[in-house]
């Protein structure tokens, strides 16, 4: 049995886990059939924002309405784009 360390947060060498809340990207859950952004997106965002956690609510595209086409890739594409956007605009 060996145990080795993978992350070294000091000095941002190889940062590991956050010690304080970071951004939370919240994709409004929709079951891939509709967007529930009010109750499960904005309202959660307001709640956690009031508690000091920045929430980014993602309103993503739904899959193509044609059921014969694959459900992906629109929602994960939008999610990845949102992650990239948040990271680009995050404070160092």
């Amino acid at each position: 049995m060996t145990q080795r360390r993978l992350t070294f947060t000091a000095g941002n060498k190889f940062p590991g886990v956050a010690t304080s809340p970071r951004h939370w990207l919240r994709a409004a859950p929709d079951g891939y059939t509709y967007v529930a952004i009010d109750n499960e997106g904005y309202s959660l965002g307001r709640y956690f924002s009031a508690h000091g956690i920045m929430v980014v609510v993602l309103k993503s595209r739904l899959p193509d309405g044609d059921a014969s086409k694959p459900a992906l890739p629109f929602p994960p594409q939008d999610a990845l784009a949102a992650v990239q956007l948040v990271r680009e605009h995050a404070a160092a």
Partner: protein
Amino acid sequence: MNYAPPFTAGALRGGAHVHGFSPDGKWVSFTSEDEVLARLDARADAPPREPNQRNIGVAVPAGPVLVARSHPRSHDGDGFSVLVTHTVAAPKPGSDEISRAFEEGWVGREGYVKRDGSKQKRALAFLGNVTTKDGKTHAEVFLADLADDLTKVGAAPRGHRNHASRSAAWGDAAPAYFHGGK
């Protein structure tokens, strides 16, 4: 479960929590705390404190493990349980030593491939609390490579050495306490 001597290889001495199956469904990981050490720590006349430390354990299908009925809550187990992390009471500042291991997860469906191309069959990623050079505590990510056969005796947990010396300090009181006496 083995709350009093004679202690048995493969039997835990305290609570286990947050169990997670390995991807093949055969092994189970968990966090564990040693009830015997915790009770020793809690005594008013305890020697210099060695806090009970949360560790990560694994149960493998190599049972049954049969224990002596030396405590009302000692009981046999179907799996062979072993701790797979090393912790110390007071990590050296700036070192890789940890005082607590927690939040583990199995790595890969069939382990992972090391840089040298060899395959590690089973491994657990987990968080460990380190101490920074200025004395602060925070969690870092660690990796524990598991031996294929966890029932073989390996390196003793680092705390074990201290435990032995403390047993000497306890003298006759230790076995009496272990058996539920005062």
